[in-house]
């Protein structure tokens, strides 16, 4: 889907198709509530296309905003994107700096002049070990979070700089502190869940990772290990992952979920009928006695 269509009106046609599709999916009531993205492959894309690494990251951002648009339009309420891992600080200082600059620019772009955030009522949250960031960026993040904090419709978590183990550790520490202060807090899975960076948001339903790698690479470990989370691994690089591919995944998810929901209710019905028949035979035998 190129942004500059050669035929006049092709753009509006495309957006019409997109809107119809997303509303159709929304009506199924089986859209994932929370989707996680590992945006992998921007660098390989730039090498493949022989463009600068910076431009590769730019292409990745464009791809992200398009996909998020489709997701929110289809009824996804929460999206979490893995933008920067704590491990990424190992990269060359030049690239780290350019990524930081890019982040600054993009966070501003997300919130100002009525862009994505306003259009879909997105509350932006930046999660991860923020103490590793420099002050300029922190200020930018604070502004963006402040500006969008009253948006209720949907949430976008930007993981920057983040690792899944750090998140679990952070939650454990919070729980320990709470116990220390309050005394008799009952510690359970729920409490740790609530103190994660994603605490209070709907549980993760779908995880998408691009560029043919079949690892989590320290992303949302706690959430993904939960039973029933669908993991989609794709062979394309992130900038090549367009809305049409995302639409296919959403359709797949909705189909699978609506089918399993129905068979679950059918199974339940079967069980309850067999239970009642058992009950009836029991009462009958009691009568016979």
């Amino acid at each position, binding site marked *: 889907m190129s942004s500059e269509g050669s035929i006049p009106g092709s753009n509006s046609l495309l957006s019409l198709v997109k809107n119809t599709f997303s509303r*159709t999916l929304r009506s199924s*009531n089986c859209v994932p509530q929370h989707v996680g993205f590992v945006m992998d492959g921007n660098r390989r894309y730039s090498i493949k296309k022989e463009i600068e690494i910076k431009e590769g990251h730019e292409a990745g951002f464009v791809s992200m905003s398009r996909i998020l648009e489709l997701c929110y339009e289809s009824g996804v309420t929460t999206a979490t994107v893995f933008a920067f891992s704590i*491990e990424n600080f190992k990269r060359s200082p030049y690239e780290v700096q350019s990524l930081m600059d890019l982040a600054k620019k993009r966070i501003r772009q997300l919130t100002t002049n009525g862009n994505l955030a306003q259009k879909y009522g997105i509350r932006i949250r930046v999660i991860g070990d923020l103490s590793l960031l420099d002050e300029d960026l922190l200020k930018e993040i604070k502004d963006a979070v402040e500006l969008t904090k009253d948006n209720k419709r949907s949430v976008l978590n930007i993981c920057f700089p983040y690792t899944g183990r750090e998140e679990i550790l952070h939650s454990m520490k919070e729980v320990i502190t709470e116990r*220390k202060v309050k005394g008799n807090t009952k510690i359970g*899975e*729920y409490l740790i869940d609530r103190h994660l960076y994603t605490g209070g948001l709907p549980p993760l339903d779908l995880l998408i990772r691009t560029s043919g790698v079949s690892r989590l690479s*320290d992303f949302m470990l706690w959430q993904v290990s*939960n039973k029933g*989370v669908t993991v989609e691994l794709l062979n394309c690089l992130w900038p090549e992952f367009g809305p049409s591919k995302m639409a296919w995944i959403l359709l797949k998810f909705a189909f699978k979920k*609506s089918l399993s929901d129905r068979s679950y209710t059918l199974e339940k019905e079967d069980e309850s009928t067999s239970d009642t028949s058992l009950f009836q035979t029991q009462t009958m035998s009691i009568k016979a006695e």
Partner: protein
Amino acid sequence: MSQIQEGVRARVHNPDDEAISSTHTKPPLNASFEKGNANTKLRTLKAITESIYINNEYNKTEKNEIIGRKQQQNYFAYLFYKILLVGLFIVYGAFRYAQYQYNRVKLRIYDLVYNPSNTPQLIRQDVLKLDKIPKRVAAILDMKPIGDVGGGLTGLLNDSSELICWTVSAGIKHLTLYDFDGVLQKNVTSFREEIHNKLSKYYGPSNVPKFVVRIPHSNSMYFNRDDSESEENKKVAIEISLLSNRDGRETIVDLTKTMADLCTQGSLDLSDVTMDLVDSELTQLVGPEPDLLVYFGPSLDLQGFPPWHIRLTEFYWEPDNTEVTYSVFIRALKKFSSCKMNVGK
């Protein structure tokens, strides 16, 4: 830090502290344990028709409020989208059916191509072609309904001991077996018997490789078939760890509880709770992180596998596969040998 270890272990056996996990879902296929899987096909068909049928009619008991309001406002638009949805689902369903059949045929062909026929030498040959093999392999196994072929406890024991034979033959020294309900842990005696039988089928009765079954949760070790703990018998060819849902999130919860207690008592400082500490404790309690995780199910579902231990683990599964077969195992190893690791770079 043995204090923490002891604390967590003590907690494991304390039923009062057993937290009812908020996210605990029904174990897989539990519902169909008694009845078997015989009527699933019919049920699937029923579900498909039902979903189309229900989609078509104007459903008043819609859960979602937003859509409920929308219905009143714009009933025709709603109906329009529902009909479109049915169309989409029919097209997708047809595609999915074709894809399913294709995948099944593919799997059957792979089964023919890779056939170990109970000989370690053949497996060795397959593995020698690979550039690298994982040090530690984990597998998630599903217990199938009793009514199915290869279902129930016998099926599970058979599958997992077969898997152990392949792992030994491939020269991999550590295998982690995960099943949600911990069925293998509960039946460890018959499991050891089964492993011994399978291994003697592969290697001959006089030449059975030595093995040890570890249950990290209860901190116990079982050497070979009979607990002969002589020094010679401790030189094992394979170490098998059995994990269940209990070793996942709940162990992390136990660790948190223990550390919280120690913190309130003052014998542990909050600043001492570091990544290294938690990592070493969890490695002690559950085991090290596997390099490769093979799932013998139709689509990847980690089913509560210990979250701390899947940081850089490579996942492998075959779409629409439901059986534990050698072809899946060897293809997983092949995939692993071709993957590149670059942490953060």
